[in-house]
């Protein structure tokens, strides 16, 4: 089709609008990102989570997570009265499509989003026989898939069940805290789409990050503290029944 001057005049405003949206999705340039100036973690505000599964879907899309495997997932807990040691937990398809209506009556129900805890003393990093799994200077546990042997020792060593073997690459995989995004000034995919703000990326080295105020004023826990892994995903309002 031949583009005439008339066509061009019609196309230009549309292109300008489209370009604006392209720019909105482009990470702000961060040429001065210094690894040592950050120490990443995450805050999960359990009372705010509605179990919609948006985070699971966004993560799967952003990171091309294969079906049936999860870098993040959501669990629904039902705790009957005082039976704190015997919660009923479910996570159908990792909560990716949300949850069916709750049929349990009595007791309490709540959702718990899970992801890699980016432990400072991570057992998965410790056991990797070739050092393909490592902690970055800004506190994110990553896997070098060009170096990973696929021995699965790290999957066994993770106390939280956060790792899996990607059937396409045959290497260990897990949440990267959207490292490709956070190093460019963006937040993670899961935090970005969370409709209630139940998930918030936290820079523990940045004194201006609201995480510090939150940690000071709330009762916060990490998962399985007895494992002494230096977990950096903090849970607000977490019930003692959560595993």
């Amino acid at each position, binding site marked *: 089709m031949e583009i005439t001057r008339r066509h061009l005049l019609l196309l230009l405003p549309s292109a300008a609008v489209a370009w604006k949206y392209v720019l909105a999705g482009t990470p702000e340039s961060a040429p001065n990102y210094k690894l040592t100036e950050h120490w990443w973690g995450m805050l999960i505000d359990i009372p705010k989570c509605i179990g919609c599964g948006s985070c699971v879907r966004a993560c799967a899309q952003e990171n091309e997570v294969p079906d049936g495997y*999860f870098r993040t997932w959501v669990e629904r807990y039902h705790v009957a009265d005082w039976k704190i040691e015997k919660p009923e*937990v479910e996570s159908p398809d990792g909560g990716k499509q949300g949850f069916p209506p709750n049929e349990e009556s009595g007791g309490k129900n709540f959702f718990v989003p899970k992801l890699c805890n980016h432990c400072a003393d991570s057992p998965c*990093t*410790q056991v990797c*026989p*070739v050092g393909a799994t490592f902690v970055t200077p800004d506190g994110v546990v990553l896997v070098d898939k060009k170096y990973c042997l*696929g021995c699965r020792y790290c*999957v066994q060593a993770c106390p939280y*069940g*956060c790792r899996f073997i990607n059937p396409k690459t045959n290497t260990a995989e897990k949440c990267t805290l959207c490292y490709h995004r956070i190093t460019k000034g963006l937040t993670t995919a899961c935090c970005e789409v969370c409709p209630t703000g139940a998930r918030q990326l936290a820079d523990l080295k940045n004194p201006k990050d609201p995480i510090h105020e939150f940690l000071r004023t709330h009762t916060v826990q990490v998962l399985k503290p007895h494992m002494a892994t230096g977990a950096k995903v903090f849970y607000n309002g977490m019930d003692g029944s959560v595993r």
Partner: protein
Amino acid sequence: MTIPVEGFMYPNEVELQWSVLIVLYPFITGLVAGAFILASLERVFRVQAVKPTYRLALLTALSFLLVAPLPLQLHLGHPERSFEMYLTPHRSSAMAMFGFVYLWYLMAVLLLEIWLDYRRDIVLKSQSATGLVRFVYRVLTLGSDNISERSLWIDERLGYFITLVGIPSAFLLHGYVGFIFGSVKANPWWSSPLMPIVFIFSAMVSGIAAVMLLYMISTRLRRRAIDIRCLDKIAQYLLYTFVIDFSLEMLDLLQRIYEADESFRSLDFMVHTRLWKSQVIVQILLGTVTPIALLGLTQILKLTDAARKRIYALAGSLTVIGIFAMRWNVVIGGQLFSKSFLGYTTYKMSFATREGLLTAIVLMILPFLILWVLVKLLPPWPDADSLSVSSATPAHGTS
């Protein structure tokens, strides 16, 4: 393929990570370590009664050791990168040292000891054989054809020293395998300081039983009389080691039951359901209590030689099956429950796949084929009828 799940598993836990091939890994290395310890009984501790099995034990250890890395290699997602463990080992990893421990044991202990022990035979054979066989033996001499009395004496002393080093090395090899499991703090089924020690003793049990059976089978195949004195002694050592092994395992169990920590209810349920047959029936009742009782009977009652031989054969077979079940229960059992302690998954073993049953069967047949070749090449029989060069006897070896 849908994997049946009971209760709640973390979503990534449903699929088992370590398959039957990883069950073979500790089983095979255990046989290696155990067979070597049996050989050292004669060499270092001068238990003359077990001499007929000395060389057979060494060749058995070598046959299994050569196969030991194969299940690991086949299991890796990227086997072509396994050499990285030698080039850039991650020092904090319990697994990273495997290659070094393996190489040390293979090169510095087993191969060297076998070569020194057989050197005289190899040299004589390289002189008497013809054609291709002669060439093979000439290669095996490694250019050293001095078999003077002085030279053989040096072989003997060096061999003794290597066996001395070999004993802690055998402990290291299998204790280390135990540590790979015992050091995983995320898994309460594995995490135990007793794990390396239990692995060492169970290795000795399986190795001694395997060599005892191989000795009985090979002697029968060669239509020779079984040295019952030798068999009695091996069975005695098997019994003692087994009692220690069983005591350690029961100590671990007792501790778990009495402590009853957060994982106990979950693990207890697993033992009473998914592991009932493989652990309680096969491992404990058939594979441990029964052989201990049978071997105990031979110590108490005055039985005929024929009866004792049958009992030893039965006890030995049950022992090997029991130790295999123990490896199975450790490796597979440790992955059947959720780390949330709220659910259980199922192990579905495939057949003709890279990590399937067929591969496992081939890997278990392979050491016997290697042993067959080794036995042809380096006959281990004390009567040395297969060798035409047994006229002179060195200070130690084919007497």
